[in-house]
């Protein structure tokens, strides 16, 4: 690994990265707009300029270079000596910032980016407190460039990150630069709006408030939001995301850097796919039926009721008549707790995997890319944790069936009691499944939304959306990633993990980590979940 010296401080860095990247990784805050580690280097913003030690061509004596060089375009070499902490560099940064603000409207109070805007941050840190501009600023009205995105042209700093994104990552080439000089603009081609499945990322990588999300526009100021690291449940890719929420409401999802899965990106389907969390039709409290009577017991009584009803059933009908269907939307911990409980009550019970939703085909980006050229993947398997639940089922052993086999066998009357877990964001109970509900004498339904199975269920437990739970998902590549809870469940609902933990009779409060410790005895892979490295604020 090469060693370079930045401001008299020797740092070790990866081979072949630009000096800027090495400095950022070493924790330095070097201003930059156009450089993004996931995109090609254009060195157009001139904000990351540095001084470099070079040999004088006449005397071969090492001295500071006569001109400043862009650190984003200079790859590291062993023994390189550079500096950012000099009067010339600071002067250059301040002058650059002055240019960036020439036509900037300075409308931070009404700009949605304020609070997470690089232009704002760098102005405070590296810019000058006043502008010498005496002419009228150029005013350029906002443009509607796509179904989900607005372009505020006069806030733009022309870093072209968005243009490079559509060229290099999504491969759809919707955005381009038009005009020249100070009148350059970002624009779309006539009749071709920005509507590719990854377009939301241009809003994230825009360092200023130029590209804004229509969905989040004017909803909240960003400093009111609290970010919780999580995993996207939209498909089996398992992108690392950040849930931005306030007052128990999710406002937006943002991608989090994860070198092993999604890099810096996420797809629009995942980004806007959280709306079901705040759907009014969610099941909000537990229900228990006895004869024609429907009761809403308190959560303290639920473990006892569930255990008693199931034990009673096993005594009457035998353990082999019991089945449990685990959903691929469950966290591994929840699946493990449920499988463990069902097997404890009825050791010969049958465990099944719930239906795995598939939609369309796998999508690879840039569009048309194959093999190593693929930068981002959206999988057709629209659930986060099929592999995790399979691992749990495999570890549980015994009679494991698919959902089709389960439906078939329950049609033949093989099972008289079943615990069915839903938790699908979209309606999942088809006609066959709905009919199946009548086959069971004792049906425990754990689901998000009211559905046809509920009519025949003896016990209904509200399931929670992933933002309200904690645990871990195993993605398509077999990577175990943990996620934290961001908000509280609605009304009297409780998080699945907590009540399954209580039903399983374990002491104390449920936490994903505590259950993973127990799971690790049978499934050593769960001893440690992968966590993406945290990056400083201006890392990209």
């Amino acid at each position, binding site marked *: 690994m090469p060693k370079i010296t930045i401001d008299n401080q020797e740092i070790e860095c990866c081979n072949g990265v630009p000096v800027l990247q090495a400095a950022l990784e070493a924790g330095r805050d070097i201003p930059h707009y156009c450089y993004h580690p996931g995109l090609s280097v254009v060195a157009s913003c001139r904000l990351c300029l540095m001084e470099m030690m070079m040999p004088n061509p006449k005397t071969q004596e090492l001295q500071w270079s006569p001109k400043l060089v862009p650190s984003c375009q200079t790859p590291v070499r062993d023994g390189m000596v550079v500096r950012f902490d000099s009067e010339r560099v600071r002067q250059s940064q301040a002058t650059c910032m002055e240019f960036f603000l020439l036509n*900037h*409207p*300075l409308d931070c109070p009404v700009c949605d980016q304020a609070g997470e805007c690089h232009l704002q941050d760098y102005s405070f840190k590296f810019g000058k407190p*006043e502008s010498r501009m005496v002419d009228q600023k150029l005013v350029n009205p906002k443009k509607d460039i796509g179904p989900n995105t607005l372009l*505020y042209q006069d806030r733009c700093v022309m870093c072209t990150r968005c243009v490079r994104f559509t060229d290099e990552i999504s491969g759809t080439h919707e955005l381009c630069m038009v005009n020249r000089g100070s009148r350059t603009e970002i624009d779309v081609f006539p009749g071709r709006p920005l509507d590719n499945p990854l377009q939301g990322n241009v809003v994230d990588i825009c360092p200023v408030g130029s590209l804004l999300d229509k969905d989040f526009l*004017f909803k909240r*100021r960003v400093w*009111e939001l609290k970010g919780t690291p999580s995993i996207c449940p939209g498909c089996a890719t398992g992108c690392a995301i950040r849930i931005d929420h306030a007052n128990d409401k999710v406002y937006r999802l943002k991608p989090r850097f994860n070198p092993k899965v999604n890099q810096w990106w996420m797809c629009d389907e995942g980004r806007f796919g959280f709306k079901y969390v705040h759907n009014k039709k969610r099941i909000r409290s537990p229900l228990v039926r006895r004869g024609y009577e429907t009761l809403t017991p308190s959560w303290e009584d639920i473990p006892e009721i569930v255990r008693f009803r199931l034990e009673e059933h096993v005594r009457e009908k035998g353990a082999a008549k019991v089945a449990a269907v685990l959903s691929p939307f469950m966290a591994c911990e929840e699946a493990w707790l449920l499988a463990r409980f069902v097997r404890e009550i009825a050791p010969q019970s049958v465990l099944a995997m719930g239906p795995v939703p598939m939609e369309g085909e796998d999508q690879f980006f840039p569009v048309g890319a194959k093999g190593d050229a693929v930068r981002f993947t959206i999988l057709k398997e629209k659930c986060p944790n099929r592999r995790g639940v399979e691992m749990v089922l495999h570890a549980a052993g015994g009679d494991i069936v698919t959902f089709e086999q389960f439906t078939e066998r329950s049609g033949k009357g093989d099972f008289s009691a079943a615990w069915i877990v839903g938790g699908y964001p979209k309606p999942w109970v088809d006609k066959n499944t709905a009919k199946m509900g009548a086959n069971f004498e004792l049906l425990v339904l754990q689901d998000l939304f009211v559905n046809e199975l509920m009519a025949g269920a003896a016990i209904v437990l509200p399931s929670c959306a992933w933002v309200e739970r904690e645990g871990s998902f195993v993605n398509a590549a077999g990577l175990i990633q943990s996620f934290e809870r961001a908000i509280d469940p609605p009304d009297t609902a409780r998080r699945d993990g907590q009540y399954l933990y209580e039903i399983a009779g374990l002491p104390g409060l449920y936490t994903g980590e505590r259950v993973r410790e127990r799971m690790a005895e049978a499934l050593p892979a769960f001893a440690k979940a992968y966590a993406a490295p945290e990056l400083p604020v201006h890392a990209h």
Partner: protein
Amino acid sequence: MISEADIIRIDQPELTASERMYLPQIVDGMKTTLRHLGKNLLKNTFTVQYPEQKRDLRLQNYRGVHRLNRDEQGRVACVACYMCSTACPAHCIHIEAAESPWPDREKYPAKFDIDELRCIYCGMCEEACPVDAIELTPQFDLVGRTREGMILDKEELLAVFDQTAAMKPRKNPHVTGYAGTGSRSCSCEIPISHVPPSAAGASAP
């Protein structure tokens, strides 16, 4: 658990004999009371016979009920930037922003509620406002029959402006919001004459 080493035990100091009598303290206190009584008996300076008499207030400084200012066209001057609710230490301002119906402005408050019971009348909202849209008025006799009634909404706050505009005119009446983006007019810019030359056009974002 807190370890024993981290616990600091403090005993109350013993009272001295004179302290235990309490009399010297009572005499001390009465002295102050009687001094004020004497002063007031000689010449009555402090009592204002409210509500027949009213105090002279310093209109520009007094921090009473809030108002939402109107611009010269009678529209609400607020641009829904949330600066006041961010600055508010009592969390009593609730704003909901929406796209403004006027071409010269980006946002406007669809809802603007101030809980006058929660408010501590510190004036931070007025300090924070970038367009001088929220101001505290010299009105101090706010009464209500219910707690809900004391939450003033946008219309009520604008009504306070209508009542008090004559008594205390708006600070910078020509400021009509942060237009800039989305419009061709530059009416939003604070005229140079109102800003000291060193700060003209400065305001780092």
